């Protein structure tokens, strides 16, 4: 955006504005755009989810308001906003009011570090990844406030569950993302996306392959395992089935949202869907190349930038549009998976969730970090670091190193998955065996 604003102000209009003016204007534009699209995204997501899940259940879904029900979320929104705001008498009034705000505001900040397209990012923080998760955990405070302030047992139970769950699952989420930081050497999300150019093989690993924007991390064993772990953790963070335990309607009604209505409830809802959207987007960004895709590299090379002053700003816009399209397409694809999960599975119990997180996911991500280190060692390190053994057959190409790394990490990761899954299931099976042996066995029908 900076480039475009700079081009319009200084080059076209010849205003010779100072740098900070350009920066300010471009940031304001971006912020305005982001704050405009976030709620619209939520509206569309709710519609999208309801239609998709209805189809999975052989139903039609909302199709009455507007063309094919597209205006349904608007109608829902109007309903929400015009509802009476009910605050229980016994509630802590101020905390009750603050809770939805504390929950909803941080998720909006998270947009700041999300790269939408080449050079399209509000703030390209060097610690973007850390910022993203640091900010998202502030929401948790809001949930606890809501549960506590409501003075309702269900709300309190829900809030406790939510906090326990979100805090626990931040660990595997971050651990699974560490590999990307290790591979790219940067926490900037833009850098991570840019590292995923290439064709099934990242150009950072093998520089000389054609750049089709498909060098996604998910195509490596390390990246794939990290993707699976991260997506599961993201489901738990975003309170999606099968981890929608804090708001398990069949058990604790609506969890921490039980005593909320109207606008405040809508804020929780909004926060949750924005969070889900962002989690899907971040999954796409880190594992599926974000805005990377075929055609981006060419458009970027044609566009105007500091390196290429002869470029055409039209290509900047085109690259941005295509990048945004890719990102949104990937995001919605992930959201579809979330919806399908919601359609297919029951939810886990809170203790099972904790078991799963601490006993399965965290060890798995730890092993994955080991794999990531091996990956880096094999693809990049030479004789000086003691990895000359790879080059026993003369000078191996980068591709061969890549293939060796692929095979090694694949073996490690599959073995780790198999081992941990077995360990966890064994516990369950042992109990099962005890049940069967514990005097409860059926006496087969005795013949006369």
């Amino acid at each position, binding site marked *: 955006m900076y480039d475009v604003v700079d081009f319009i102000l200084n080059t076209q209009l010849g205003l010779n504005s100072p740098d900070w003016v350009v920066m300010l204007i471009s940031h304001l534009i971006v912020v305005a755009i982001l704050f405009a699209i976030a709620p619209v995204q939520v509206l569309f997501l709710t519609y999208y989810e309801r239609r*998709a899940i209805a*189809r*999975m*259940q*052989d*139903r*039609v879904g909302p*199709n009455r308001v507007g063309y094919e029900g597209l205006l349904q979320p608007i109608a829902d929104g109007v309903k929400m906003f015009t509802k009476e705001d009910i605050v229980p008498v016994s509630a802590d009034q101020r905390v009750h009011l603050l809770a939805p705000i504390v929950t909803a505001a941080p998720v909006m900040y998270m947009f700041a570090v999300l790269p939408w397209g080449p050079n399209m990012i509000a703030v390209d923080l060097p610690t973007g990844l850390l910022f993203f998760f640091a900010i998202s955990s502030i929401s948790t405070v809001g949930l606890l406030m809501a549960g506590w302030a409501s003075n309702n047992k269900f709300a309190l139970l829900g809030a406790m569950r939510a906090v326990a769950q979100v805090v626990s699952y931040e660990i595997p989420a971050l651990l699974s993302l560490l590999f990307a930081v290790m591979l790219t050497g940067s926490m900037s999300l833009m850098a991570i996306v840019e590292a995923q150019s290439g064709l099934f093989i990242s150009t950072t690993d093998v520089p000389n392959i054609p750049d089709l924007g498909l060098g996604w991390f998910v195509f490596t064993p390390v990246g794939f395992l990290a993707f699976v772990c991260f997506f599961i953790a993201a489901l738990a963070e975003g309170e999606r089935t099968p981890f929608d335990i804090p708001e398990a309607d069949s058990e604790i009604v609506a969890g921490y949202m039980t005593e909320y209505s109207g606008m405040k409830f809508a804020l929780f809802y909004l926060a949750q869907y924005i969070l889900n959207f962002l989690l899907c987007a971040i999954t796409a960004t880190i594992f599926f190349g974000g805005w990377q895709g075929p055609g981006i590299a060419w458009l970027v090379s044609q566009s105007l930038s500091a390196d290429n002053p002869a470029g055409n700003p039209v290509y900047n816009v085109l690259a941005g549009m295509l990048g945004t399209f890719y990102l949104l397409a990937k995001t919605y694809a992930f959201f579809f998976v979330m919806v*399908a*999960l919601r*359609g*297919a*599975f029951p939810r886990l119990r809170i203790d099972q969730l904790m078991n799963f997180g601490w006993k399965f996911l965290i060890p798995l991500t730890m092993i994955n970090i080991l794999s990531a280190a091996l990956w880096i060692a094999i693809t990049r390190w030479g004789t000086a670091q003691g990895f000359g053994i790879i080059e026993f057959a003369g000078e191996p190409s980068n591709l061969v190193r890549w293939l060796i790394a692929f095979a090694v990490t694949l073996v490690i990761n599959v073995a780790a*998955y*198999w081992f941990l*899954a*077995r360990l*966890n*299931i064994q516990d369950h*099976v042992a109990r*099962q065996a005890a049940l069967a042996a514990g005097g409860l066995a*059926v*006496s*087969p*029908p*005795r013949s*006369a």
Partner: protein
Amino acid sequence: MSNDTLTHSLTFTEAPAALTVVVDPTPQIARGSAVVVERRRPKAAGWSLLQGLGVVVDHWRKSFRKLDDTTQIAGTFTTEYPEERLPLPEAYRNMPILLFDDATGHELCTSCFQCQRICPPQVIHMTQAKDPDTGKPVPAVSEFIIEYDACMSCGFCAEVCPFDAIKMDHNFELSTADHSSLTVHKTDLLRPISYYQSIAPTFWAEAEASAYKKLETNKKRRPATIGIAPQMLAQLKAAHELRDDQQEATMPTTAVASAPAPATSSAAPPARSAALAASASDLPTDKAARLAAIRARNEAKAAVQAAPATASAAPAASDGGDLPTDKAARLAAIRARNEAKKAAEQAAAAEAAPTLATPDMPPTDVQPAASEQAAPPAPTVPDASLDEKAARLAAIRARNEAKKADEQTAAAGAAPTLATPDVPPTDVPPATSEQAAPPAPAVPDAPLDEKAARLAAIRARNAAKKAAQAEGE
């Protein structure tokens, strides 16, 4: 025996010895066996989850086609109700209705009280007709009431009826905001046999012979006393006159002339007619509407002539005669509303109170308000058989307008009388000049009190005339 009995739970150590003594613990399973269900585990961790995901995604994929074939289990099966409807089977039962013969209008019911006796929630009430000459009960029913709101649709009444006079209707769209309208009287229960034949052809074919035979026997036995469906009365009479006077030009004029005037004739049927008995009742309703319109227009004219101060004359639905009934009704209602609005506007200055009549009332229930100036009597609207809702809506709106007018005229001490839909007010106070008249209370069970309503209507009309005359002077 202590509270321990409640908490012993799974540590129930002393299991009752029932399982071990004398009798074999497993039942004799003849022609089959006890199968222990197999508890399976997934082949690989996570595999079953993907399998489950596959099922829903498969359904999602297949749901883009619509399937009506019940052998399939995927694809959208939704019937989008108001537009699409499932065919109702013949046996479908909703609420009971009474049948009458299409040709002669004879009711099949002989008031044998079988249905009243069997009805589990006791919602059927009937009164046996009496011979007007001798006072003896005759096999016909003079009033038949079913409380639809408490009916449980069990269908016993239709099952036990020996004369096939009571049958179960297929119309399930009975929801209404007006609770009292769910106490349904004979007039609204009656449907022609042809209607029942159209919804349940084979059922009627089975019953037809015996039903007609019994009807004929009954007619033969007591020729004069079999009840005639009120819907048919006007038609029969019209047909009779047509036979008498073949030269008479058109049917409508004949009808208007000869149709029993609802307001004055004691034999008049209420203009309400059941929605589905359209085939038989269209004509009378139409006529009644036209008649009402003409009357209303006349009244309005009189009022206008008498009171030029109220500039707005009420051109009643005079041209409604050419339109279908429902349209006319709606038109009339809309006009009434407009009139009311205008009146309301003028009321502030002229202190005139508008009066309104509403769709479901007998057409002549015009109640001019007592005030110094005569307000234009609004056209009355007969029951629109097809578009009742629209008409009612308009009426409600009209009423609201009138209320507004009421508020504006309250200072002047003019009290308009308001009628609610469906309920003809039974008690319209005589108009008194320069004195506030109390608003007429709407009586919920007014339909029972038709006479009073009519009386009130007549009185109201007289009052209006008087007021008009006073204004003229």
